[in-house]
């Protein structure tokens, strides 16, 4: 019960202080809209391309929506020492960091469904396999958030977190199979692609929207879960060794 009280209060404070602010809400809406527009212009095709574009727009919305928030909720609070209040609370570090990241996960999932709502007016969504799509989005949000956490605890300034995020985000964007199928990438780049969590998330989204996944869904889910576990564990270890000196 006490753990639940702490978890809920950290989450609701972050939601009120960061996520539910008008700039973030508008960012959460405008960003997927802008990506959708860019993809349409690029493809130069009509509404029949919406199912092809949807997985990519969803994945990008989650990736950018989650990774950018941790720089504020974690790095900023660490810099201004309010994070010390959380470290002094008699709660396990694992619970504390889950509470700090859940807001970003919820924000990322909400971001992913903005393009889905838009797509509802443009395509027949009855073809979508929701049983695959929803857990896929949630796992992409978890893995992207934990990547953001890993970045946030590796730096000491907010601007460093933003810069460092791009070091991961843009290669992932281009190598995850969103713009080019992985089979068309140079052979030496393919291992890099398979070392990125978004690759497996995008594959699941392609499968659930267009039945066009290239890997078994079990493998995709397993790899995403493994990335979540490793990134969270490494982030916790970094907090213990770098912040609790």
């Amino acid at each position, binding site marked *: 019960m006490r*753990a639940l009280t702490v978890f809920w209060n*950290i989450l609701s*404070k972050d939601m009120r202080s960061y996520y539910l602010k008008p700039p973030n809400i508008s960012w959460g809406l405008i960003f997927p809209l802008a990506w959708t527009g860019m993809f349409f212009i690029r493809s130069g095709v009509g509404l029949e391309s919406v199912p092809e574009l949807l997985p990519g727009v969803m994945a990008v919305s989650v990736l950018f929506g989650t990774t950018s928030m941790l720089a504020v909720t974690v790095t900023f609070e660490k810099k201004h*020492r309010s994070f*010390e*209040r959380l470290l*002094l609370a008699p709660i*396990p570090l694992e619970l504390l960091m889950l509470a700090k990241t859940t807001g970003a996960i919820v924000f990322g999932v909400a971001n992913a469904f903005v393009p889905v709502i838009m797509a509802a007016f443009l395509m027949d969504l009855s073809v979508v396999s929701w049983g695959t799509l929803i857990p896929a989005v949630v796992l992409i949000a978890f893995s992207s958030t934990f990547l953001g956490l890993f970045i946030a605890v590796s730096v000491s300034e907010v601007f460093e977190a933003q810069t460092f995020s791009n070091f991961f985000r843009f290669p992932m964007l281009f190598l995850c199979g969103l713009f080019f199928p992985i089979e068309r990438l140079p052979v030496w780049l393919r291992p890099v692609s398979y070392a990125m969590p978004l690759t497996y998330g995008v594959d699941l989204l392609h499968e659930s929207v267009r039945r066009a996944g290239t890997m078994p869904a079990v493998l995709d889910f397993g790899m995403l879960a493994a990335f979540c576990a490793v990134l969270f564990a490494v982030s916790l270890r970094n907090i213990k060794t770098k912040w*609790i000196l």
Partner: protein
Amino acid sequence: MSGGSEPVIQVEGLAKHFDGVQAVADVDFEVREGELFGFLGPNGAGKTTTINMLTGLARPDSGTIGIAGIDCSKKPKAAQHLMGVVPDESNLYPELSGFENLSFCGALYGMDRRDRRERAGELLERFGLDAAAERKFAGYSKGMKRKLTIAAGIIHSPPILFLDEPTTGIDVASARQIRRLIADLNAAGTTIFLTTHYIEEAERLCGRIAFIVEGRIVRIDAVGNLMRLTEGRHVVRLSVSGGAAGLCEAIAAEMPHLACTTTGDGDIRVESTEPVRVGPLVRLLEDSGAEVFEARRVRESLEDVFVRITGIEAGAMKQEKDRAKAGAGA
């Protein structure tokens, strides 16, 4: 409140180094239940590092920390519910109001909604902040921020409170109010571990004091025992024109039983184990070409004891700290 017999904080052989610098070395002390224990030392002496290790914000290289019988060097989380911590900077959330900050801090200790709202209201009133309860913390004055930070440290009514420089950088009225609150908390039974560079504050509030210099404790004693070191010492302080340079040599030559030093503000300080006769001393200085504006007998304070034990000029220590704070705030 004087301490009971049970130690609630027990530290043995505590050591910590950062980047090749020994921040804390072989520190041992005990704080008894209900005691107000002062930790005094100059900037960089290891006070905050020690507090961080005691509260679980830093890991000791070696040594043991016991908080109410719990081994905090191994399991810091297990004792954190017993502690309130007020850091040297007011680190509450700027975007939350005073009331929301206290309520949130209560929630971190698992307090339910009704209890923490009641306690937050009670503390805001007690600290004179009830009129500003709904204002954002970012808009508070320094003194108000400090008071709210202390209130946040005791929201869960901890039996042990760590206060790191609670009155640094705030106005005199707020500092007086905070000192009164600290004394009241201690009188109500809270064990308090206080670091400060205001020696007169430690003298007024603490039952026992540890002096720490360059990471090592050089003396731990009751304030009464430390003050006894001033007994049988006679001190005269003289303000002279044109500075004190060369005058101590003249005093040493003519009155070798007197120990003479110059103070940070250019006065001459003369001390002896026998009563000092002011008339001959003033005449000697005037014969040496100085004009004496004022000569007064001084009752030695804890500050003098600190200087004698540590060899550190207390005024310089305070100025150094204030400069560091001003630099950080700029």
